[in-house]
């Protein structure tokens, strides 16, 4: 493995599910990279495939889903390793943080036992005192007092449980953390606490973090880079500041405008709903909702372009000009979308 290479390198990943109505193309050709000490935010409306992508990386997909492409973790293709080996990697190499912490903690086990189980499963030779020292250190880092080490999960508040979950995920110092909506169920103040913990994490341990969220505010504050997902593909990806200040894809721009923030003075929204992943629109999947749609957008799938500002984007607005057919730049006549066509 090269020293500067990405910790996680997803190449052209596809994850499809079968359903009675046809194949669900939840992830349909996605490439992303995360380096050590970097936070990549993955955003999009619900139903765009972002959670499936997170699960696909972890190998936690339901039976019967079809996967291809490559998920390289430090040059190991996670799609090719055995379940056993993958299980062994979860914890010391890759960790997951979920939205609802209570469902992941065993209500009959003390916090102490959760930690010793996790640690000894991967490092069976450690002494008891060392296991305890490491657990207390991880908990202390999350602000959980050592006096409560022997409590049961239900004796903690929601925010504390989430911090315990994070401590548990990080006690083995994984190189990659995937957090799927880690703060969605929490209040703003607790959310801010957790985000600052995650920020410390990458600073102190050089962890690579994939943060899946629908909250653009969180991405702006906590992420170095951002990938905007739409209908199973990455519409735009790049430096978070650049993407947020000069969005290149109309979807990113419209999404940012539709967020209600403290600076909102007028309401704005994207008409329509994210498309069905079973039969998405042809060519550019955003074209029926896109305010800038051109004729070519309904004819040809857009080609990935790297812009001078650094982001990569899949949108015909950015060319390549030589691939756009004659008259392709004319505005597209779109069908009217009814007001209540929404998610």
């Amino acid at each position, binding site marked *: 493995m090269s020293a500067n290479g990405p910790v996680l390198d997803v190449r*052209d990943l*596809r994850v*499809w*599910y*079968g*359903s*009675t109505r046809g*194949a669900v193309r939840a992830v349909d*050709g996605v490439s992303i990279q995360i380096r050590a000490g970097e936070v990549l935010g993955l955003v999009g409306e619900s139903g765009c495939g972002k959670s499936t992508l997170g699960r696909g990386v972890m190998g936690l997909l*339901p*039976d*019967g*889903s*079809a996967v*291809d492409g490559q998920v390289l973790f430090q040059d190991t293709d996670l799609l090719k390793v055995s379940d056993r080996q993958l299980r062994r990697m979860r914890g010391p190499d890759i960790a997951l943080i979920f939205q609802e912490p209570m469902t992941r903690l065993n209500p009959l086990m003390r916090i102490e036992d959760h930690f010793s189980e996790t640690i000894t499963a991967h490092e069976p030779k450690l002494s008891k005192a060392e296991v305890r020292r490491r657990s207390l250190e991880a908990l202390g880092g999350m602000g959980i007092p050592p006096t409560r080490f022997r409590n049961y999960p239900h004796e903690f508040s929601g925010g504390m449980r989430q911090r315990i979950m994070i401590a548990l995920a990080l006690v083995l110092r994984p190189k990659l953390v995937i957090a799927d909506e880690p703060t969605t169920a929490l209040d703003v103040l607790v959310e801010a606490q957790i985000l600052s913990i995650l920020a410390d994490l990458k600073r102190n341990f050089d962890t690579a973090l994939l943060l899946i969220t629908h909250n653009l505010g969180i991405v702006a504050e906590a992420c170095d880079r951002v990938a905007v997902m739409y209908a199973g593909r990455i519409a735009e990806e790049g430096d978070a500041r650049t993407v947020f200040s000069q969005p290149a894809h109309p979807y990113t721009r419209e999404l940012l405008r539709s967020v209600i923030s403290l600076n909102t003075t007028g309401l704005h929204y994207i008409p329509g709903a994210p498309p069905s992943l079973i039969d998405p629109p042809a060519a550019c999947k955003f074209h029926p909702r896109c305010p800038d749609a051109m004729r070519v957008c309904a004819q040809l*799938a857009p*080609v*990935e*372009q790297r812009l001078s500002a650094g982001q990569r984007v899949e949108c015909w607005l950015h060319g*390549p000009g030589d691939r756009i057919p004659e008259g392709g730049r004319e505005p597209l006549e779109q069908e009217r979308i009814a007001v209540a066509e929404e998610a």
Partner: protein
Amino acid sequence: MASQLIARAGRAFGPVREARGVPRWIVWAGIVLTLLFVVMALTAPWISPYAFDQYKDASGQRFVKQQAPSSAHPFGTNVQSTDVMSRVIWGARTELKVVLFAVVVSLLVGLPLGLLSGYFGGPVDRVLVLIMDALFAFPYLLLAIVIAFLLSDKFGSGVATAAFAISAVYIPQYFRVVRNHVVSLREESYVEAARALGARPRTVIGRYVFQNVVQSVPVIATLNAADAILTLAALGFLGYGIQPTDAAEWGYDSSRALSDAGAGIWWTGLFPGMAIVLLVTGLTLLGEGLNDVLNPVLRRRKMEPVTLPPRAPQEDRA
């Protein structure tokens, strides 16, 4: 209105039609077996060769007792000289009548009590739960026998007595299932929303709670019906059920066939016994199948196999 009803019924049976795999087979096997007995019960006067208590033919000639199956008596005759086949067919009518009656009565009592108890809660709820749990804890057959014994003075040992005795056994079951369901539904937003609209408790219970509770009734009613057949047969077997002169009943017939078995007379016991087994199996399959099909927790989204088509030519990726 009629079209609306049809639409609603279609909606309710949609899951049965759409069911796939094993649950589909279970539910259809149940439907076929159960329908077989229903048809038998409805057409008994026409398909049965003789009346259930008939022991002589039209010419006044008494049937030979314990006669082996023959063309005149396809299932043979029993110790009382009655035709076994006729008693099996007429028995279907008795069993279904009693069970239908019992299920309706226990529903009529258990469902409203469960609704009110669960919705209003409080001391009444606690007392009702205590009573019902006490009844539930009682050995069910003993309970049925006691009730049947008490009622036989008033109503005689006919269909009504047996039905009431069996109802008493199943009321606590409906009560419990309905009450617990209501307690969880009471916390649903839409029930509170109904109150917020200004609806009276009667309306809230009737239109918002009942409509959703009632969906679990077909399953437990079918499963209880299967159980009730066994209880009725047990009552008959022990001699506390329907008297043979009132109606044909498989449990009673089985008990009379007990002594025949040792003498190699197999037909008097086999046919009523098989009828019991088949009807109970049919109802159980139907109930379990409905449960699999209707219960959203058990109804797993079936994954269809999917294959990834080859990718579009790579030249598109700059």
